[in-house]
């Protein structure tokens, strides 16, 4: 069987941030209690001229820039998001044009709450492995919405991560992938609704934890691996607490989960959440390291992946505009400006 894996990757996080204290001040809530619950201190906010298409393009351009291959070989582009700028008109075609890779390719927008990015990765892995294409581009991007005063308003951030998937010059080889999917009424947004609704505490045990743990366990059982085989593990990050609890439940240490836990600084980037953590791990991982990545999308499902980092990773690092670059670019804004940027003020 031919090998398949990640050949390059790119990140993007908007520079604007709003602190938990700033939101809590408006609603006269206790910021310390919210921070203790979420372990997030600020969230990223897209600028007024940013949306899922612009963030997807920026992350994809970073994936292409650091890589030495030919982007014209891209045979598929999938953009996973729950906040595509158009209801009808694909984000993926905008990305294709902005990368100058129109027109002999297949493309589509995907939606599966916070796991549409990893769904696109699976599709690219399948197409490359079956030799239908030589190179695929999977992107997870979101400009997530949280209703004012809803608990989500404190954590719903924005960002994008892009992965070039191929079979040559692989930097992280795919060992296996395993998915769990059920019909779960934990989080939803009806057609035409501006803000999502959720089942509050119901989003935890039967939803996030059940799917994340079952997918991770299922993959490790299938591959015959154990937690100690992995240097890094990344889970979906609706807050910083959930992935740490999931890691503990599976038997991973704090050290194994730490590097991928980027939501503390930028909130939950929904479709980009777990894969931005994965990108940050790839920025630091050594050849031979094994990485477990498990996404979670409400509704609900989890995709779990096992990767081994190869020597080729050194050919695309260091790169200036990596995840850390964007995490370090920070301009804190007040709630008034946040309300204007998010379209709350019209």
């Amino acid at each position, binding site marked *: 069987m031919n090998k398949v894996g990640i050949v390059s990757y790119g990140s993007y996080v908007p*520079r604007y941030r709003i602190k938990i204290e700033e939101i809590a001040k408006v609603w006269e809530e206790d910021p310390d209690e919210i921070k203790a619950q979420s372990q997030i201190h600020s969230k990223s906010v897209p*600028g*007024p*001229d*940013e*949306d899922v*298409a*612009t963030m997807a*393009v*920026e992350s994809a*351009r970073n994936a292409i820039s650091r890589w030495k291959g030919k982007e014209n070989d891209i045979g598929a582009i999938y953009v996973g998001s729950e906040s595509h*700028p*158009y209801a009808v008109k694909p984000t993926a075609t*905008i990305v294709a*044009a*902005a990368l*100058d890779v129109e027109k002999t390719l297949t493309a589509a927008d995907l939606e599966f709450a916070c796991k549409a990015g990893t769904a696109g990765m699976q599709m690219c892995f399948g197409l490359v492995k079956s030799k239908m294409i030589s190179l695929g581009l999977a992107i997870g991007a979101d400009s997530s919405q949280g209703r004012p005063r809803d608990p989500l308003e404190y954590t719903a951030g924005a960002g994008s991560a892009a992965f070039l998937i191929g079979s040559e010059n692989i930097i992280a080889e795919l060992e296996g992938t395993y998915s769990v999917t059920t019909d779960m009424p934990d989080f939803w947004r009806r057609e035409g609704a501006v803000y999502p609704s959720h089942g509050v505490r119901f989003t935890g045990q039967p939803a996030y934890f059940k799917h994340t743990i079952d997918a991770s366990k299922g993959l490790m059982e299938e591959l015959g691996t154990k937690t100690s085989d992995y240097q890094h593990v990344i889970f979906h990050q609706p807050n910083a607490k959930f992935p740490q609890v999931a890691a503990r439940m599976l038997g991973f240490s704090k050290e194994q989960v730490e590097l991928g836990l980027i939501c503390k600084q930028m909130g939950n980037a929904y479709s980009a959440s777990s894969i931005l953590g994965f990108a940050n791990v790839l920025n630091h991982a050594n050849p031979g390291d094994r990485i477990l990545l498990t996404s979670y999308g409400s509704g609900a499902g989890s995709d779990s992946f096992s990767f081994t980092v190869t020597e080729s990773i050194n050919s695309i690092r260091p790169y200036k505009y990596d995840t850390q670059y964007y995490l370090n*670019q920070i*301009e804190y804004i007040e709630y008034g400006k946040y309300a204007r940027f998010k379209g709350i003020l019209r």
Partner: protein
Amino acid sequence: MEPPKIWREKRGKYLAIGIECSDCMTKQFPFTENCTKCGSENVKEYKLATTGKILHFSIVTQTTDEMMSSTPYLIAIIELDDGVKITGQIVDCNLNEVKEGGDVRMVFRVLARNGTEGLIRYGYKFAPI
């Protein structure tokens, strides 16, 4: 802006593609069928450099309806690393911190939205490095 115009300008706005004259070697932006310096039709597509320096800038406070929600914003003339001069908006910056001579790089942003139901126009802007 009408759909055909948005479609026609796509490569210029998304990719900053101009021309290079094969006779006088002048690089120009935006794309034209003829070299604006020597008139030659012997021109080919040329992708501009993506980094440069701010030569001059101005803060815009009064503009068209579709851009009013973005004011105040900053418009600059940028000299790219390949010598081509281009006009563009500077984003991701505090207006009072931008300086002539400052280094910038091209980024992909929304140029304008036609209300809540019309088309969204995308293209290049510049961010400080």
